[in-house]
């Protein structure tokens, strides 16, 4: 039999192949669109999970940072005339800088104050975006963004992003980058320090961990990836509305993380894919759909606090396959 590590590599390899061939099998344009959206939500959910799952800080402005990344990228393309490939990284940097600037004051707060402070931050930024007509287009939003420019290849060929399937591979690439960076970060010593902070911040501090510095770095990286998801979202959709930066967006991302399984890498990936697909499947419920999601969220937190991943681990423990439960 294979060792545990080997088994994992094989499973991940198979999943990757599945992700690569999936759009070739699913030829329906609308379903491909859903898959692109899932990819974008996975990036955002992975980013939220970094600050929520590992550092234990519920950032209710996460959706707002997603919106900031989207608006920054869109405005750089539209107002500054930058190409997408320059606007996206710069948009991420702007988001991360705002994350750094706002993270320093808000992360000084502890316990109940942090979610409230970030919620207020999110509301304040939302209103700036929604009301600053001259700069952000206000309630009307931004229209007519072009898709990312084609990447030239040798021999006169190029990778064009006009089709949904090409956008899917673009998003998949960024999902893999995000998974790679975040799993390396979580596995490193700073990841262990973050978990120590989540467990007991005073204790971590007394062990000589500069908790404030670690939290700020974690928050900044988290907002960077939220901005990345937002920037891709803007270029892919071509239109933006203030609602894309509303603090309710944070709630949706929270849903992905919690249902998938908080404090794991697989959790936000599963949640970011499972929840939007479920949303599509539940279209027939109309307005009651979000009510059902609210119920799912409540039942999850009550009976399955570590989401789908936690549930699988628990089942594996019970049947003696040696999973680990946190």
């Amino acid at each position, binding site marked *: 039999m294979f060792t545990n590590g080997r088994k994992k590599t094989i499973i991940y390899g198979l999943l990757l192949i599945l992700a690569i061939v999936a759009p070739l099998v699913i030829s329906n344009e609308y379903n491909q669109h859903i898959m692109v959206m899932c990819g974008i939500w996975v990036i955002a959910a992975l980013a939220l999970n970094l600050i929520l799952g590992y550092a234990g800080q519920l950032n209710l402005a996460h959706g707002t940072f997603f919106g900031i990344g989207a608006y920054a990228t869109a405005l750089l393309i539209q107002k500054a005339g930058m190409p997408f490939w320059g606007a996206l990284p710069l948009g991420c940097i702007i988001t991360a800088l705002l994350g750094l600037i706002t993270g320093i004051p808000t992360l000084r707060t502890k316990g109940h104050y942090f979610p409230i402070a970030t919620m207020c931050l999110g509301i304040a930024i939302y209103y700036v975006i929604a009301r600053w007509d001259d700069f952000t287009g206000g309630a009307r939003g931004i229209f007519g963004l072009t898709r990312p420019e084609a990447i030239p290849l040798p021999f006169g060929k190029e990778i064009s992003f006009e089709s949904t399937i090409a956008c899917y591979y673009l998003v998949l690439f960024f999902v893999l980058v995000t998974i790679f960076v975040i799993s390396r970060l979580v596995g490193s010593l700073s990841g262990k320090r973050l978990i120590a902070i989540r467990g007991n911040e005073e204790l971590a501090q007394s062990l000589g961990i500069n908790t404030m510095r670690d939290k700020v770095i974690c928050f900044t990286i988290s907002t960077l990836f939220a901005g990345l998801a937002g920037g891709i979202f803007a270029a892919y959709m071509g239109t933006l509305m203030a609602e894309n930066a509303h603090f309710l967006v944070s709630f949706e991302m929270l849903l992905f993380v919690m249902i998938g399984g908080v404090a794991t890498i697989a959790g936000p990936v599963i949640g970011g894919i499972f929840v939007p697909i479920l949303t599509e499947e539940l279209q027939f419920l109309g307005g009651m759909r979000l009510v059902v999601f609210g119920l799912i969220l*409540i039942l999850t937190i009550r009976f399955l606090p570590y989401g789908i991943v936690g549930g699988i681990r628990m089942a594996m423990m019970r049947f003696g396959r040696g999973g680990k439960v946190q």
Partner: protein
Amino acid sequence: MGILLQTIINGIMLGSIYAMVALGLTLIYGILNIPNFSHGALYMIGAYVAFFAISSFGAPYWLALIVAMVILFVMGMLVERLAFRPLYDKPLINSFIMAVGLILIFENGALAIWGPEFRQIAPLSDAVIRVLGTTITMQRVIVIISAAVLIVAVHLFIKKTRLGAAIEATSQNREGAQLMGINVHLMGGITFGLGTALAAVAATLVAPILLIYPMMGAPVIGMAFVIIIIGGMGSFFGAVLGGYIIGLLETLVSSYVTSYFTEAIIFGLLVVVLAIKPTGLFGKEH
């Protein structure tokens, strides 16, 4: 002068609403130690209950107010019992997420059942008072006076009755209260019900002036959190005073500075306050 007076009256009226909502929020926080994000959604349901009591059952305004209060009291107790109590010994974050789930259910449930349209309750009195060349509607005066009476009543209830004393004891020292034979779980439920009922009254009082719609709780709950953070979480007078201050500030800023960025300024201000003092203006260090 007339405009300034009108602005101040409007500010005090808005402040009365904020004070009641924030008071409920702070009472719940004091006992259960959870910032109940779903408080705004319950506020909204309170307004709908009153609306339907009037429009479907022909109840007079005051009766509708009492009905909304009683129903939301029961609802608050149920929410505490079914949603928050099972999470009491769990990590804090679980309660936050529970509240987010409740918001999704209440707000979208209201949207699905009652639709997005705005509704209004007819004011109790159409009378207009003329002072210093300006006019003030009677309904505003009614809101201000009723709120003040109610706030004093809640204060007397907590300070002068046995039940109130038990609630206060529980919020000061849960274990101690339990050792004295106080049923702390029951106190939690009653306080949650009381706080929710206060929100329902606030919503019903303001419904003739502002409108009733499924998302009406969102702006109010945001402000209520600003208030209880400034006033110190769990503090009775902090919530009341903070409510009036923020209500006045909001109307003054939107009349004299900018009506466009009022919310951004107030919520931004809170972030600045927290940056300077992470436990709020009058909050205790912990």
